[in-house]
């Protein structure tokens, strides 16, 4: 499992012909224009942002997640945030095992809440409020999440400084009300890894294309981003989205679809 995933992250772009940079730049300009029109059309409708979750809800069909229940912290909703912090600690050498790293992250939450830190998060407050057995469940869930990611990769092959769990946002220059989020769990200089959950679905390429779109829009030199790799730990399956002009179009169409859907376009908190 680890060998294949690492290879998918470090392999050069897999395309029959090299990327046509002129076509890429032209498509990127078209996409910027399309997003500008979408932003203007939505002006006055309130702030909104588009995430991979929205894309999945809009395009996932029968596999779309239900959107009825309001968000609430639980061991399941907290596992990624805590698990990513744990992997970051492991990579930095601050912890030797996922268990130790998760414990340290939860201790940080306790300390931040106890000391009234200004950086305390809602997750910190929730975790610190739990009784010991509840915290144990949260830790168990996060340990499993972190262990699967930690054991799935040959970290030494990924280059000097993989970035763990930093979401990238693109804010529309045409409207302060439109923002797109690119979520990736591991970013190397060459590629982006997204840990996926739920069933395999047709919408996954659009979800991953959104990551590529955000990277492209943020790039100062309009350069094409590296491949985006989606990985299901439950099955070991991989999906790799190569940089190609059609990826930009695919993601922009998905954004338009989300915005046209109305109910799935969430107001920014």
């Amino acid at each position, binding site marked *: 499992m680890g060998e294949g995933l690492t290879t998918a992250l470090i392999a050069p772009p897999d395309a029959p012909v090299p990327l046509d940079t002129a076509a890429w730049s032209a498509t990127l300009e078209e996409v910027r224009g399309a997003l500008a029109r979408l932003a203007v059309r939505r002006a006055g409708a309130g702030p909104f942002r588009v995430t991979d979750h929205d894309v999945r809800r809009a395009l996932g069909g029968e596999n779309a997640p239900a959107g009825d229940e309001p968000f609430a912290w639980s061991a399941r909703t907290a596992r990624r945030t805590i698990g990513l912090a744990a992997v970051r600690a492991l990579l930095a050498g601050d912890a030797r095992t996922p268990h130790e790293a998760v414990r340290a992250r939860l201790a940080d939450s306790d300390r931040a809440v106890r000391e009234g830190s200004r950086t305390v998060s809602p997750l910190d407050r929730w975790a610190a409020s739990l009784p010991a057995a*509840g915290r144990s469940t949260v830790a168990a869930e996060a340990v499993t999440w972190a262990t699967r990611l930690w054991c799935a990769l040959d970290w030494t092959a990924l280059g000097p400084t993989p970035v763990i769990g930093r979401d990238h946002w693109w804010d529309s220059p045409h409207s302060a009300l439109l923002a797109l989020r690119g979520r990736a769990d591991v970013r190397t200089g060459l590629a982006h890894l997204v840990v996926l959950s739920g069933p395999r679905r047709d919408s996954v390429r659009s979800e991953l294309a959104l990551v590529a779109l955000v990277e492209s829009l943020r790039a100062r030199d309009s350069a094409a981003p590296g491949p985006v790799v989606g990985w299901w730990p439950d099955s070991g399956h991989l999906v790799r989205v190569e940089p190609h002009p059609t990826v930009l179009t695919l993601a922009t169409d998905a954004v338009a679809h989300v915005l046209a859907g109305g109910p799935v376009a969430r107001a920014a908190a």
Partner: protein
Amino acid sequence: MSTLPPMVLVAPRPLRRPSSLAAAVPAGGEVLALLRGDATERPSFDPGLAGGLRAWLEDAAYGVVAHRGDLAPPLVLGPREVLGTAPGGLGGMTVDGRAADGWAADGLAPVAGGGVGVPDEVVVARLVHALFRRLVTDGDIDDPLRDALDALRAEGSSGTRTSAHVESMSEPARSVLGAVVARHVAHLVDLVPRFAPGWMPRTDDRVAIPLAGGRVVLHGVFDLLVGLPQAGTASLCALGLSTGGSWARERRSLHYLALLETLRSGTPPFRLALLETASGRYGIEDVRADHLRALASHLAAWLAGVARDRPDGGEAKVPCG
């Protein structure tokens, strides 16, 4: 190569240790020693085994799709469906709150009249399972029933519903439940080894294998996995927890999970442990290619049954190797 004989029942501790001196030695130490075994001798598997098993199951799954049609919703199958596993092993229940195999997400089965029927064994299984995770993660349990309810509440909506159900019970009923759970916990504490963090113990590791392009999904949850995955080498141990039900069925569920792991990573766990908290008995065995082939044969036959309009699948019996 097999280093352990087929899984045999190890008698419950009270029957095996009449002296107080022996009673001071927890069974978990033996479980750990047997799981570890001789590190120089690990069963080897044909590198082509996983591909062959997958091809076998893909063929059967495509038969199902051909029968049900491309537009039919995915057929999501857990051990409860394909093996008839009783809820004592929780093998058919997902931890993510989905009622993938016919049970309500919280394990509470709806009954006529709009109420909620509560199979006692399901509630006990969920409580004991929550305490098992606590034991593996923290190494201790304070007040079994209180800890279990606190743990379930933190799980999210399905756990909260289970805890709310228990809290709605009458005081005498809760006392009885508490006593039952305490009996399980006594065995649990005795049986569950204390794994060093370096073994990478992780609980509730979910496996979901899509077949036929995702139109058929085989899924299950390892109660506990230990070991570092190594490409091409069987390097994991899996531990299953049973709070009741047939020993043979629970063992078969472990073989089913071993098959899913083979399809996920290319190699199965090399060793399996089954702990039964109702009695304190346990068994440990090596995974053999025969186990995997037997399960794949059963699943292929079961899927062929679905393709022949038998909603309960095909063969009910499977050789246990």
